[in-house]
């Protein structure tokens, strides 16, 4: 599967009539509040620089109003930036003409929306093939691909229903099937699961992870839910007031929150399911260890295995199958339990 990486460089978005004329002021430190109160312009995004590697899931997390939905809409240019570049495999999306942009949207990207945004007057199958219809693919192939993806998201038998007849979870499966049928290397998901019940949301996350393991698309996933971000994201960027405050893997963010804001986010996280053995292991092979664990084992699973094996030390096996260190039960437990008196800086240095 061909994949494309996305690179965002120096992106600013200011909403208002004379947006361009305030870019320099914002660059020189004018705050969002100042811009709004004194000049009546809204700062949407400020100096965004982000590289999203091909074939992985990049989560952009933030609370409402943080600019995350604005950011994802720059990738397929549903919103035009005030200044900056959005490079997809080296091509700047912001410089494309109408025709090129349309082709780019048809062939390179597909999008899933928070409120599903299905066409209510079309049946499930006709919704799903919408992207192929725009691409001008012939009818037989449209139907074949549409039915295959409807089957993959578990909606076989509902092809001829209207969206209104389906539950929210099922409608979003249609939304996902519509995006996947498009066969685009980039999948943009704007709070795709936020409108669903918790159980169905977890279910849909599993569907996405399962499909991604096979398809290896470049996925950009927007969410306000940290648990969702940690579960799905190969990398996570956290947005606040239009700025990226931290970017890294889920572990980076949980173990080394950049500031108090993120710290307050990660407080409630189940660390045992985020932190991996490799982050807390010590170097050298332990001679007395009877148990071997892979380096990407979650701490919770490691603790369970060690308890079941009745041991408090295990060797860690790296990707190459060689032993790359060992881990003590004490270290596992102390990493799983948040140390309240530790500031972010000290926590980082203790690793």
């Amino acid at each position, binding site marked *: 599967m061909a994949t494309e990486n996305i690179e965002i460089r120096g992106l600013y978005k200011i909403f208002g009539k004379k947006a361009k004329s305030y870019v320099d002021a914002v660059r020189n430190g004018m705050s969002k509040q100042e811009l709004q109160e004194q000049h009546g312009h809204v700062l949407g995004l400020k100096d965004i620089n982000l590289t999203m590697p091909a074939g992985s899931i990049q989560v952009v997390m933030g609370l409402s109003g943080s600019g995350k939905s604005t950011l994802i809409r720059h990738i397929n240019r549903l919103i035009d930036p005030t200044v900056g570049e959005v490079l997809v495999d080296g091509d700047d999306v912001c410089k494309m003409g109408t025709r090129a942009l349309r082709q780019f949207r048809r062939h390179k990207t*597909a*999008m899933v929306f928070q409120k599903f*945004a299905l066409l209510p007057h079309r049946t499930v199958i006709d919704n799903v093939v919408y992207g192929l219809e725009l691409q001008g693919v012939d009818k037989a192939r449209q139907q074949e691909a549409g039915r295959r993806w409807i089957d993959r998201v578990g909606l076989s038998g509902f092809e001829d229903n209207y969206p209104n007849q389906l539950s929210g979870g099922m409608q979003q499966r249609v939304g996902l099937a519509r995006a996947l049928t498009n066969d685009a290397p980039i999948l943009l998901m704007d709070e795709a699961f936020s409108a669903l019940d918790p159980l169905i949301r977890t279910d849909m996350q599993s569907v996405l992870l399962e499909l991604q393991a096979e398809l290896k698309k470049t996925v950009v996933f927007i969410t306000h839910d940290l648990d969702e971000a940690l579960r799905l994201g190969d990398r996570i960027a956290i947005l606040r007031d239009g700025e990226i405050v931290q970017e890294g893997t889920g572990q980076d963010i949980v173990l080394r929150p950049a500031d108090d804001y993120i710290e307050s986010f990660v407080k409630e996280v189940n660390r045992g399911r985020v932190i991996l053995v490799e982050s807390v292991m010590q170097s050298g092979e332990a001679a007395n260890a009877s148990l071997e664990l892979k380096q990407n084992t979650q701490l919770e699973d490691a603790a369970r295995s060690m308890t079941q094996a009745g041991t408090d030390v295990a060797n860690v096996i790296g990707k190459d199958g060689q032993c790359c260190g060992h881990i003590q039960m004490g270290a596992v437990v102390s990493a799983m339990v948040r140390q309240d008196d530790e500031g972010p800086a000290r926590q980082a240095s203790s690793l």
Partner: protein
Amino acid sequence: MAEWYQEFPAMSRTGLRDLKKGIDNGFREWTREHGDTVESLFDPIKELLIWSERLLLNTPWPIILIAITAIAWLGSRKLSITIGTLVTLVLIGYFDMWEDTMRTVSMMFVCTLVSIVIGIPIGIAMSKSNVLERMVTPVLDIMQTMPGFVYLIPVVMLLGIGKVPGLLAVVVYAIPPIIRLTNLGIRLVDKEVLEAADAFGSSSWQRLKNVQIPLAMPTIMAGINQTIMMALALVVIASMIGVQGLGQPVLKAIANQYFTLGVFNGLAIVGIAIIFDRVSQAYGKRLQAHSEVVHGH
């Protein structure tokens, strides 16, 4: 107290007379010069009017009866409406109003067709441009509130009496709802669905054809329904400028105090109005069948 306080200081009588005369003469001269050209512009519509009237009058009545009943069935898929249509038409024929009714139906059909063909594109253009919306809305207000008789005058001055001026007067009166409701319907289309259409790479024509028009269709159908009703209302008034049909007996009844003649023809107009209203509404409702069945019901 000063005179200007008691009575509104109006323009002097001679001044006012000269003004009105000036405008009237100017327009009259313009119509004398260009009347023929303008009239020839409407020739295709005249042909259409004559063709449709001949079709309805020359076809034997049982075929028309069956055809209209069949259209009522195909449009509404409701037995009650279909039977109602059949009974109404039979009564109209029995009371010897068949020919006048056919003339009225023909006129109304062409007027509605012209209104749709002109009105929907204007509505679409309005929905795309706020400037255009601000410019067209007051014109529509004038068209809807100006008493019907008033714009019969310039039309008659320009084109004389007959079918085409009648059609013009009817269309001017009946077209505002379809323009307004097309504009409104498209503006009300869910922004998220439009965004999805864009995200998948729709051109603006594809967006219009696949999303905006279908989703605005219930509103547009309401506009068409209103246009039909208003066209029917003015077809009667237009009988004053020589439009044949059910309006003329009504006009005659008013002039001569023939009460029964007036009521019969009036009821025939009501009858066909109800037929067209119910059938077009039921058809509009069937178009949005997809929104009727909701999850959980």
